């Protein structure tokens, strides 16, 4: 199951009295912060320079009043779109499927980049849309003693101009007030494309306006503005250094991924112990009854098996959010651009690929930010190979099985090699596709690096928590449904059979497993794991809860659930009396999960984003066939070499 950051706000077709104000601005200008304050939404959409989902639409937060819808759009430098998500910005303003045309446009300008960002305001002004200009980064300006002449800007731009402080929401009420007063009888035109002479003129005009606005009330504004960027320049000398920067990059990424495992471990223990306790409590409520058995060994076990990984998922989201909001992520993309371009991608692919380690769904959506269609295609093709958080439960269990908690170091190394391995496989796949895909369009990389800012921990915490909860909410129903199916499937038709093995073998799941056994047997596993593999196609993490049920955990209450499952796994034998889980079969399973495309949500998003069902289905078949063939080869090869 994949959590997606696509937050759909249910907006009934906007009534005639509802106004839609569209927030438009360059990447990193602070649109989404303003949007969150306006709508009270605690949501941030995928947000990397320019990457936002199609658009987000939200009603005003209750304390701000009614009658207005706010729309967040992907970042854009101009109204002449050059990448897929800039096209979305224009479309969502002019021909929105929900409401047609926006009522007014709020142009969000970064106060520290005034002269550059004013271009967009001039363009919007030309269209004739009622316009409100919001100047962000007020806190940074204030700190350096810079005061902008707002009255001058109002007169020059002929519209309300409001300063906004993203930290404390200063200016929010004025923005809402201005939105309530916009004219309703405007007939905006389509944006005009400026030729180069005109661009030059407009840019000079922007320079002039910015200079006037800054110098009226501030001495030496340029010197003060420069101070804002000085620190960033100093840090970059280190972090973007050709050798030292690369070492820091590796250290930072290793720190991120190792913290996912080390930092999370104690919390995972708590969750695990909590569910073991719950299991016992539920079992004791009605010992020997069908309903208590169902609740304890079906429902509680299934949820426990998956929710134990919530701490890891939270830390991953938190880590990516931290890098993103501090400004480092764009640097990482720059550092990695060259190696990535050798594989037919670009530094811009880095963030979608990194997000792929959390979940492929928002990651594929984030590829819209890549301006070259070819780069985008290759990037979204390899994203499902990145190890998403749904694989964590599976790996954690299999690695724990291999090392029985004896060697944390070895476990860590195997974890790391799975991640590195997926990068290698992804690189290989990208390289192959790159060879065969025709080279027809030029891509430009050109990326703005935001200034370093101290991340706001409360915002980060809230955001990671929301994303994690989203994951749980989306995974929850799926886990429940499968818990029921698998529990019924493994306990019936002969629930009262005393012999656990016979009971399972004769059950519905057992019968189905027997049918598919010839297919999974070459992978070195038996029909019970086959049942797990099938259920993993609904959601990878269900594999663990399905094993928990098929291998009848919770019949001994001494250990934690995971310990109990591991014991059952190590004792499990197939019909020939051979162990089911051996070194070779477990390695095979890990390889299968590393490569196979089992997430149907990903396939659906892939089809939607690429506009090609053929590509999505082709990918589904290719990845799974490759995974299967590879696993069979590895398992049989290992066995031939004498590895059990």
């Amino acid at each position, binding site marked *: 199951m994949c959590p997606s950051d696509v937050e759909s706000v249910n907006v009934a077709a906007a009534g005639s009295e509802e106004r839609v104000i569209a927030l438009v601005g360059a990447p990193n200008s602070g649109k989404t912060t303003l949007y969150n304050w306006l709508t009270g939404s605690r949501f941030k959409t995928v947000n990397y320079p320019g990457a936002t989902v199609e658009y987000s639409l939200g009603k005003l937060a209750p304390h701000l009043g009614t009658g207005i819808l706010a729309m967040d759009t992907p970042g854009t430098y101009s109204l002449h779109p050059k990448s897929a998500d800039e096209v979305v910005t224009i479309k969502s303003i002019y021909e929105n499927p929900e409401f047609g045309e926006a009522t007014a446009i709020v142009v969000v300008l970064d106060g520290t980049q005034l002269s550059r960002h004013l271009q967009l305001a001039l363009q919007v002004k030309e269209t004739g849309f009622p316009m409100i200009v919001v100047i962000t980064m007020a806190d940074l300006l204030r700190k350096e003693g810079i005061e902008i002449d707002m009255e001058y800007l109002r007169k020059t731009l002929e519209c309300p101009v409001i300063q906004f402080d993203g930290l404390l929401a200063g200016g929010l009420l004025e923005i809402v007030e201005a939105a309530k007063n916009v004219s309703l009888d405007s007939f905006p035109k389509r944006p005009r494309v400026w030729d180069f002479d005109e661009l030059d003129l407009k840019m000079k005009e922007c320079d002039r306006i910015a200079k006037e606005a800054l110098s009226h009330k501030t001495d030496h504004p340029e010197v003060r503005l420069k101070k804002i960027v000085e620190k960033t320049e100093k840090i970059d*000398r280190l972090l973007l250094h050709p050798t030292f*920067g690369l070492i820091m990059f590796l250290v930072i990424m290793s720190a991120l991924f190792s913290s996912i495992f080390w930092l999370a471990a104690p919390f995972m223990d708590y969750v695990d112990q909590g569910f073991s306790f719950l299991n016992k409590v539920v079992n004791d409520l009605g010992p020997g009854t069908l309903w208590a058995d169902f609740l304890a060994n079906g429902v509680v076990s299934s949820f426990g098996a998956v929710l134990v990984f919530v701490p890891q998922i939270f830390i991953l989201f938190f880590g990516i959010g931290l890098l993103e909001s501090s400004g480092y992520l764009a640097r990482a993309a720059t550092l990695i651009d060259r190696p990535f371009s050798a594989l037919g991608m670009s530094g811009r692919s880095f963030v979608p690929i990194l997000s792929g380690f959390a979940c492929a769904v928002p990651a594929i959506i984030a590829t819209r930010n890549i301006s070259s269609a070819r780069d985008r295609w290759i990037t979204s093709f390899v994203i499902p190979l990145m190890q998403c958080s749904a694989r964590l439960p599976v790996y954690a269990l299999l690695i724990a099985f291999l090392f029985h908690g004896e060697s944390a170091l070895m476990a860590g190394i195997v974890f790391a090699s799975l991640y590195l391995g997926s990068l290698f496989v992804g690189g290989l796949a990208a390289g192959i596709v790159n060879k065969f895909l025709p080279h027809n369009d030029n891509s430009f990389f*050109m990326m703005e690096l935001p200034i370093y800012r101290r991340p706001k921990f409360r915002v980060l915490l809230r955001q990671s928590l929301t994303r994690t909860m989203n994951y749980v909410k989306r995974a929850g129903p799926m886990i429940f449904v499968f818990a029921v199916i698998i529990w019924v499937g493994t306990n019936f038709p002969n629930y009262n059979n005393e012999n656990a093995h016979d009971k399972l073998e004769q059950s519905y799941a057992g019968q189905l497993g027997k049918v598919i056994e010839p297919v999974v047997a070459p992978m070195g596993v038996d029909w019970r794991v086959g049942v797990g593999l099938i259920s993993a196609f609904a959601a990878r993490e269900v594999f663990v809860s399905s094993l928990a049920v098929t291998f009848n955990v919770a019949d001994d209450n001494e250990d934690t659930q995971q310990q109990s499952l591991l014991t059952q796994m190590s004792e499990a034998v197939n019909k020939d009396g051979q162990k089911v889980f051996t070194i070779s079969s477990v390695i095979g399973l890990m390889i299968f999960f590393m490569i196979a495309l089992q997430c149907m949500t990903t396939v659906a998003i892939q089809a939607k984003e690429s506009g090609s069902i053929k590509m999505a289905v082709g990918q589904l078949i290719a990845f799974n066939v490759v995974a299967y063939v590879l696993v069979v080869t590895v398992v049989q090869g290992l066995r031939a070499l004498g590895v059990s």
Partner: protein
Amino acid sequence: MTLLDAKLKPGQTVEILKIDGEHLLRERLHEMGLRSGMELTILGRAPFGGPLLVRFKTSFLALRNEEAACAQVTLKA
């Protein structure tokens, strides 16, 4: 010389004389704020011959070789 010239070292400031290249690329460079008369500070290069890093006013930009090669510049200081 172009912005890509090997003679240019980190810390140096250059002025853009002219921007050549494909239409869309030129337009984007313009929109990002790069045009003739602008002064840029060279900050360095990303590893493996990666993008060129420059600062102009309060903005930091990473430009690939192909893009940097479009800008004709002259050394200021």
